[in-house]
């Protein structure tokens, strides 16, 4: 024990005597360790963000898209895409017991003029349930009601970005806007949601009653998609089945024929995204781990040079009684101390990088203690592994040959 303490002291001394060389040696480990921690941290961070977004979207949300279908081998043409009508939505609302909320989604867009400003944005015609499905809260005013919807009232709820661009700091509630020349009354402003996982602004949107958008803006009877929410997360697949059954009946699809729609749930979609990002994390981590190994080879290289350079020193130590094992431990300790201090510096560096990323950029990095501990341990292992060969080479020298070495 006492001997180990002395040897440790000796290896520290030798490292400090060659500051520059030690720093350069450790650099590989420093970069490797901090790369592993930061890479994995960034991956973890984006996964965490996606998870937060799932719950922000509503985790038991169901989305129904129309899909291209062939009946009896005959394509029904391009028009068959847009096959949902308000009747389908009503049927789901009436019959599906495991569906709590359901809303048509009618997409439109165009130029908005208000308050002397104009703005181009997306207009979604939805039902009042939509705000529960997508968990929209109101910053001011109210959402439209079932009655507004039935009477095709020309009312609109503005997303935060739209409100800001048209009205600045002024409260838009009660103001008139013109959507493609049709006058609408603003009855509410949505709370800010920010960007989604793809970096799109979720607040650049206007919500209006679905019937109003269908009749007054589009002059059409087909809706683009249906959003719904299950009564609970556990029942989500059963709810999806219910919706399928109802739509097949509504669309008179015979047994054995394919659906002309596609039912998915938000959780599954986002899980796919999160799986992708998990694989990315692993890939990044693996690349970083390779750099850690390269760092280890750097240590071996320097240690080998150091053995040659210090052959005389080894000879001197042996001539005054050092055993081969003493020399082995000394060189091994030096390698381990070098790589572990590289590890510590790497951890500090990665903490600094994470802090900078989190405060100054949109990239979000989380430092996982498991990864920190693992990469520290790994750097120690790298020291032992790559230090062993040069150390053994030093230990096997014959004292008189080592002393004669020029």
């Amino acid at each position, binding site marked *: 024990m006492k001997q180990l303490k*002395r040897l440790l002291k*000796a290896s520290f001394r030798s490292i400090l005597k060659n500051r520059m060389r030690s720093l350069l040696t450790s650099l590989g480990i420093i970069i490797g360790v901090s790369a592993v921690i930061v890479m994995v941290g960034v991956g973890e961070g984006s996964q965490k963000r996606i998870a937060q977004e799932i719950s922000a979207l509503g985790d038991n949300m169901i989305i129904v898209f129309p899909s291209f279908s062939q009946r009896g081998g005959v394509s029904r043409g391009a028009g068959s895409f847009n096959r949902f009508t308000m009747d389908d939505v009503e049927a789901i609302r009436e019959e599906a017991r495991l569906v709590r909320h359901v809303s048509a989604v009618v997409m439109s867009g165009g130029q908005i003029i208000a308050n002397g400003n104009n703005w181009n944005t997306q207009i979604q015609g939805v039902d009042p349930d939509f705000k529960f499905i997508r968990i929209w809260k109101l910053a001011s005013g109210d959402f439209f009601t079932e009655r507004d919807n039935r009477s095709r009232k020309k009312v609109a709820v503005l997303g935060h970005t739209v409100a800001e661009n048209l009205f600045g700091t002024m409260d838009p509630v009660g103001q008139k806007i013109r959507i493609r020349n049709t006058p609408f009354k603003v009855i509410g402003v949505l709370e800010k949601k920010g960007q989604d996982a793809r970096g799109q602004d979720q607040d650049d949107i206007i919500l209006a009653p679905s019937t109003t958008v269908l009749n007054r803006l589009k002059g059409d009877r087909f809706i683009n998609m249906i959003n719904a929410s299950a009564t609970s997360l556990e029942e989500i697949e059963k709810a999806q089945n219910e919706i399928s059954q109802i739509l097949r009946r509504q669309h008179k699809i015979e047994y054995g024929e394919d659906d002309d729609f596609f039912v998915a749930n938000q959780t599954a979609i986002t899980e796919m995204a999160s799986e992708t990002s998990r694989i990315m994390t692993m890939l990044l981590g693996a690349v970083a781990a390779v750099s850690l190994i390269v760092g280890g080879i750097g240590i071996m290289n320097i240690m080998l040079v150091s053995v040659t350079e210090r052959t005389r020193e080894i*000879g001197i130590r042996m001539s*005054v*009684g050092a*055993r081969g094992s003493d020399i082995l431990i000394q060189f091994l300790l030096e390698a381990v101390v070098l790589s572990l201090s590289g590890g510590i510096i790497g951890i500090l560096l990665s903490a600094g990088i994470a802090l900078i990323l989190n405060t100054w950029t949109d990239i979000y990095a989380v430092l996982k203690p498991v990864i920190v501990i693992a990469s520290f341990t790994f750097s120690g292992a790298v020291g032992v592994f790559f230090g062993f060969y040069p150390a053994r080479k030093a230990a096997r020298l014959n*004292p*008189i040959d080592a002393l004669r070495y020029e």
Partner: protein
Amino acid sequence: MMMKPVIEIKDIRKTYHVGEIDVHALRGVDMKVGAGEFLAIMGASGSGKSTLMNLIGCLDEPTSGQYFLDGIDVSDLSKNAYADIRNQKIGFVFQGFNLLPRTTALENVELPLFYDRTHRIRDPGSAATEALERVGLADRMDHVPNQLSGGQQQRVAIARALVNRPSILLADEPTGNLDSRTSVEVMSVFQELNAQGITILIVTHEQDISRYTRRIVTMRDGHIMSDEAVKKRLDAKTVLDTIKDENG
């Protein structure tokens, strides 16, 4: 004069293999050295002096023959046992000093204690200080080798050889890199140590230097040629005083 032999060598041979050629550095050497002797090994270059010295110092192993150290046969010991003998029984001084660079005199002298597994010396710091005082370098303890003169460096090396209280001090051309005055100073240290009972063997080329010892062994071509007592022994202290008088 000869008490019980500290070193006893019987028919020692050493052959180096360089490529296809065998170099017979020692061709059967017998020698006995008693406790408290002061011996000079002389001879032409390549006659095998250093080879013999390294074998006695357990830095190298003979090709054949027997070597008794303190009455114990050490010819077939393990590498670790050799390391322990170097640490405990032998102090070695080299022509090129062989001090650790960028390491203070004190730390250099402490080095053998670092590898002392028996821990017979309780306080390495004060033992090293004491050894440096014995060679007259108490005021240079914190100097690193390149801040010391050649003679001072050699005295640090002697202090290092002494610090483990060995019974034998071996020195291969200890004055080879020193001027004549400094050489006499080093010999004066050796004479003092010998007077305190330490057995000393030195290798030297210089006739003058050998006259400070008590016995001269001369080698040629791996054999011992002659072995005789020193007739007109010089006293280093007196010689130093004379030099001082001449200069001052």
